[in-house]
């Protein structure tokens, strides 16, 4: 049973990209925004949506994975990848309807939001609370 969810409220997002830096640094100890798992995208001038994995209820990435390398962590609600099992075939990258699983060619791994194991850095650092990690049940 999923009990937590990362809520995205684009109306509050100012496009400061703090989430991107927090994410990249948390996961890679590298502040390069290109290594982030969250992507603030402008849909209109000065209007942003911080796009990240929505941890779908019926996830296409999990269904597409032929080696059982993607599984839901019931506690955090995140779909986590098991890099040991992953063979980098790219099925999840192609199957995700929102484009939120990425192939990192440089570091040869699949990059995907794992909600930081239950304490998402993006939500912690978001100054306007456009991103909030909330208990839902």
């Amino acid at each position, binding site marked *: 049973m999923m009990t937590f969810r990362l809520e995205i409220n684009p109306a509050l997002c100012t496009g400061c990209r703090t989430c991107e830096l927090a994410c990249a640094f948390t996961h890679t100890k590298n502040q390069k925004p290109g290594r982030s798992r969250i992507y603030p995208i402008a849909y209109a001038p000065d209007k*942003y949506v911080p*796009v990240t994995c929505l941890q779908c209820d019926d996830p296409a990435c999990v269904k597409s994975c032929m080696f059982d390398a993607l599984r839901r962590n019931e506690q955090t609600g995140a779909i986590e990848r098991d890099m040991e099992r992953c063979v980098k075939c790219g099925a999840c990258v192609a199957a995700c309807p929102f484009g939120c699983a990425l192939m990192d060619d440089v570091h040869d791994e699949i990059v995907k939001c794992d909600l930081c194991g239950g304490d998402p850095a993006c939500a912690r650092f978001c100054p306007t609370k456009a991103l909030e990690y909330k208990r839902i049940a």
Partner: protein
Amino acid sequence: MLLAVIRREGIDIPALCDHPAIEPAGNCRLCMVEITKEGWGGRTKYVTSCLYPVEDGLIVSTHTPQLIEIRKTILDLLLARSPNSEVIQKMAEEYGIYKTSYETIPDGDNCIACYACTRICETLGKNAISAVLRGHDKKIGPPFDEPPPDCIGCLACAHICPTGVIKWHDKDNIRTIWNKDFELISCRLCGKKIITRDFADYLIEQRNIPKDYFDTCDDCKRVELAAKMGGIVNQVEEAAS
């Protein structure tokens, strides 16, 4: 299996053909360990840890002088078969072998016949490649060296290969592997190449993923999601004002 426990405990022993996604086969022989039990009267046995089940009371040694000697011999033999493989060179160097003492295969292809590729293909239910020919000519490939009809161009074999032997290339919208040409799907918006048409068809049929998930690349899908969510925000704001 025993190897998983050894890995969990952080003990470093080499292994080439083990991968959690496939069934263990014990083909590379590098994960050899020495086992004994109290009731065995001091006798020991050498087993491949990737194939040996864990049991109570098992006493496992991973770095006895004999085992190091065994590993050196195996690495020496692997190096003779794959003199140009960086992975094996590095492993051998750790055991103090810089040059093989055996005769090398002059036109060796670095394949150590660990069957990781055929096993992963089997896991997929495709079985497009297998060991072909026998004896000296034995190699991994499609039947009769013809383009394998069951291959879907997913590259799982190429990615799992411990020595990186399996070659493929993408040119324009054609991917070539095992002498077979595959059509790559291009993103309908930006033209970026996604996966092969056959791989997408496999996922659509076997995994019940909607067909339209595969016509756009991940970059464009994110922009589309942002636009969709932005549209909702605009609607809500309009309704409020």
